[in-house]
């Protein structure tokens, strides 16, 4: 039976495709800033929709400030905050927080330590008091720190059999110079985590967790004055102990060598690239039915002046479902369930990468198509239709991104973290709409380097190595799951 020949089952003709009605106005929630006498900053966005409040505490104690040889310390310290205070043990803390109907998420990413809660309006005062207790008076019990280290070791071990995480980790390793912090996992390696002692945690806490390094972001059903009073009662009285770090944290993001602080510092900038020549890296996962592919190189720091052209360029290249890379790899070739490209925006230059998982026997063909798309977007201007799809999507989806108090708080946290202009969110949609085809071409030519791409495939080395070599994209290195280059590689 040919379905093409089937008549439409409906007796009446289809209504015409509707045109949009006039758009209704939207504004990112207005916010106010305050600063307490001890240096703690406060950003408040009142959002009166549901009786909820989200609070984020930002402390300048991210993984980028991990001392050399103690990678993972920032995360163990951030997680350790919730594991006991001078007054309360960790189990009791968890119980108290959760009875408020929330949980305390303490974490460190590359650029910051974060404590996050979303709680009902009427429990905000209690939640703030608990946040204050863990931030100002952590006990870091030895037993709990050892447990957190054990959990990180379990995660590291599990990753060896998990192709997605393994591919991400290996890509970072091959994209950045060996001693650059970004080459090594945010949470540290088996060796660096094992080396962390309680004294390291206490020292890191005393030097990094300080009022002048701390900002609270509040979004939700609360007024600025009430938020200021509640936060001020707890965090406005914080007096730091110990000495501040020996250098400005921002010095670590520079591009020159710099002196050690109290811990000693890696000898290269944290975003130094590994090599400037293209290479292929096969990480062996015997008999894998798919290859996890990562193709890319060191990207750009968040505050780069070309941010908007690059965001739009990436949307056309691989950022959307209807982007070139996804339509090529998924819809035209059916190599994959999905393919996308993206920039990991950080204070220093995070990676740019294309990610996909493809059937093993088309690993080489998929890599070739990805390189072809990167070449193509550098060769000629994108089409008007492609550009308008990207810009109208980024413009239109803007209000949808900020439906929740947690999302609004995260957006404001980025404002603080990257020192974005105060009107960044108000100006965002206009900035996106202002990007032209020439801007996109210029961004692609300035910031994509086909000859520097690192091509990483976690898969069945026996099957994919020879076809990848035949592509002639560069030397093919072969590694085991722990990243040791094998003799025949």
């Amino acid at each position, binding site marked *: *039976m040919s*379905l*093409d020949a*089937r008549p*439409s*089952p409906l*007796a009446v003709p*289809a*209504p015409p*495709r*509707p045109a*949009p*009605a006039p*758009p*209704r106005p*939207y504004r990112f929630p207005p916010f106010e800033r305050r600063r307490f006498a001890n240096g703690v900053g406060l950003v408040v966005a009142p959002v009166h929709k*549901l*009786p*909820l409040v989200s609070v984020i505490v930002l402390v300048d104690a991210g993984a980028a400030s991990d001392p050399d040889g103690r990678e993972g310390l920032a995360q163990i310290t951030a997680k350790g905050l919730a594991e006991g205070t001078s007054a309360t043990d960790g*189990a009791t803390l*968890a*119980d108290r927080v*959760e009875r408020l109907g*929330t949980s305390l998420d303490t974490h460190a990413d590359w650029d910051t330590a974060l404590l996050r809660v*979303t*709680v009902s309006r009427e429990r905000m005062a209690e939640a703030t008091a608990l946040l204050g207790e863990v931030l100002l008076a952590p006990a870091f019990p030895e037993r709990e720190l050892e*447990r957190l280290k*054990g*959990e990180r070791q*379990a*995660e590291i*071990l*599990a990753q060896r*059999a998990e*192709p997605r995480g393994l591919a991400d980790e290996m890509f970072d390793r091959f994209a950045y110079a060996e001693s650059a912090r970004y080459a090594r996992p945010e949470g540290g390696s088996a060796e660096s985590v094992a080396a962390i002692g309680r004294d390291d945690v206490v020292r890191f806490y005393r030097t990094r967790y300080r009022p002048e390094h701390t900002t609270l972001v509040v979004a939700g059903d609360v007024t600025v004055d009430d938020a200021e009073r509640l936060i001020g009662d707890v965090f406005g009285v914080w007096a730091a102990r110990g000495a501040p770090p020996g250098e400005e944290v921002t010095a670590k993001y520079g591009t020159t060598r710099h002196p050690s602080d109290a811990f000693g510092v890696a000898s290269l900038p944290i975003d130094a690239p590994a090599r400037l020549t293209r290479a292929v890296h096969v990480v062996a996962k015997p008999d894998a*039915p*798919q290859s*996890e592919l990562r193709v890319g190189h060191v990207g750009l720091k968040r505050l780069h002046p070309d941010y908007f052209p690059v965001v739009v360029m990436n949307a056309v290249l691989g950022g959307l479902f*209807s982007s070139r890379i996804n339509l090529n790899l*998924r*819809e035209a070739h*059916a190599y*994959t*369930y999905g393919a996308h490209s993206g920039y990991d925006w950080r204070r220093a230059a995070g990676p740019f990468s294309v990610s996909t*998982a*493809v*059937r093993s026997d088309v690993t080489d063909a998929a890599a070739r198509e990805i390189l072809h798309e990167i070449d193509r977007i550098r060769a000629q201007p994108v089409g008007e239709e492609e550009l*308008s*799809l990207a810009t*109208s*999507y980024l*413009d*239109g*989806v*803007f*209000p*949808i991104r*900020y439906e*929740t108090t*947690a999302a609004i708080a995260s957006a404001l946290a980025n404002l603080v973290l990257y020192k974005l202009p105060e009107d960044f969110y108000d100006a965002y949609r206009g900035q996106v709409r202002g990007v032209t085809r020439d801007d996109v071409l210029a961004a692609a030519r300035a910031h994509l380097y086909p000859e520097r791409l690192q091509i990483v495939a976690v898969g069945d080395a026996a099957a994919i190595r020879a076809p990848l070599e035949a592509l002639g994209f560069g030397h093919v290195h072969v590694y085991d799951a722990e990243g040791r280059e094998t003799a025949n590689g």
Partner: protein
Amino acid sequence: MQIPIETFRLPNGLFVTLSEDHTAPLVAVNLWYHVGSANERAGRTGFAHLFEHMLFQGSENVGANEHFELVQRAGGTLNGSTWLDRTNYFETVPSNQLALALWLEADRMGRLLPAMTQQKLDTQRDVVKNERRWSVDNQPYGTWWERLPALAFPETHPFHHSLIGSMEHLTAASLDDVAAFFATYYTPDNAVLSVAGDFDPAEARTTIERFFGPIPRGAGRPPLPPMDVPPVFGAPRRQVVPDEVMLPRLFLAFRSPPFGGDAYYAASVCGAILGMRKGSRLHRALVRDRQVAAEANAFTYDLAKGSDLLVADVVARPEVSGERLEAEVAVEIDRLHRDGVTADEVARAVALIETDFLAAMQSASERADQLSRFATYFGDPSLVNVQVAKYRAVTAADVTAFARERLGVENRATLLFVPKADDDERRATSDEREVATLAGRD
């Protein structure tokens, strides 16, 4: 929190729910079709999900992949998902684009087949096979989500077989299957349409009547085989799976009361006491105190017919064997079964569930999806407004009674993944045979 809800039914059977909220200029459109993997015919596992992919391949007035492009160009987000007993399609768009979203959904509900071609089917079949490789075959523990229902439901039960489907069955799917499945299940009388957000209800109703009204009613859903199963397995079931993994991981499933019924809420609270966040019993005992687990969680499948499943999911620490992990979890389950829970534990669980629910309901997409869920399963979207009250009404005695009835050894199905190298393959094979025998008894 109460959200406003308006409902009506078109003459062709389409059930519509509307919920206004003008806090932001956006609107969510959500369609639930009451069809999932449970409705697949023998030899076509995975078809409901493959069919979901075909719904993004265009319809009479929409080109291939144009559905995605039109919604994204409008500034919207979109997706679809397939579950055991339903398939949903949803988009959130700027509120001035509501008509476009409704038009797209109506065109594919009324006029899908003219756009279907062998080439599109072949492409999506390969895309789905890659999805299977990505989420199941090349992912540690990836087979759990087909093994666990297979272990927990008898072979003839609609929830027994794989949702993602076997490669062989995906290969066998044809355009005739697409046409038959569409005619049988993708009809207005087998669907619920929800709209939530910034719109005018009278205007939306007119648009919905115009776009969806002409679509003819279907011939009715074919009945499913009986869904009822005994409340407990009757005897323990156990399957050990040597896999390409580094750490043992245990899935321990219990039959539990269907989603949304009176008995469901105590089961859900019991799950939260057992494995929701750091203050839960499994986390506290196994992760924090005894340090035998790296992670511990519990959840319900939320199946609305026959039987739900409550599942504990625990990953071992590196030095802990699968058998040890199993024994350690059993200690906690036995204690809960024997001694029940306290009012304090119920209070913690209900407070967490309540905040999570409220936080999720900030999103128009989530509101629309919940409205569709309660309308599809129970014909009553306003149940969304009593969920918090139902949880608040749960007492320690209710949860204790549930634990006593359902957490005994006669209601435990164990799915244990162990690293291949450490395992004795012979033992695993004999376990699988034992499972097959037990499953045949229902």
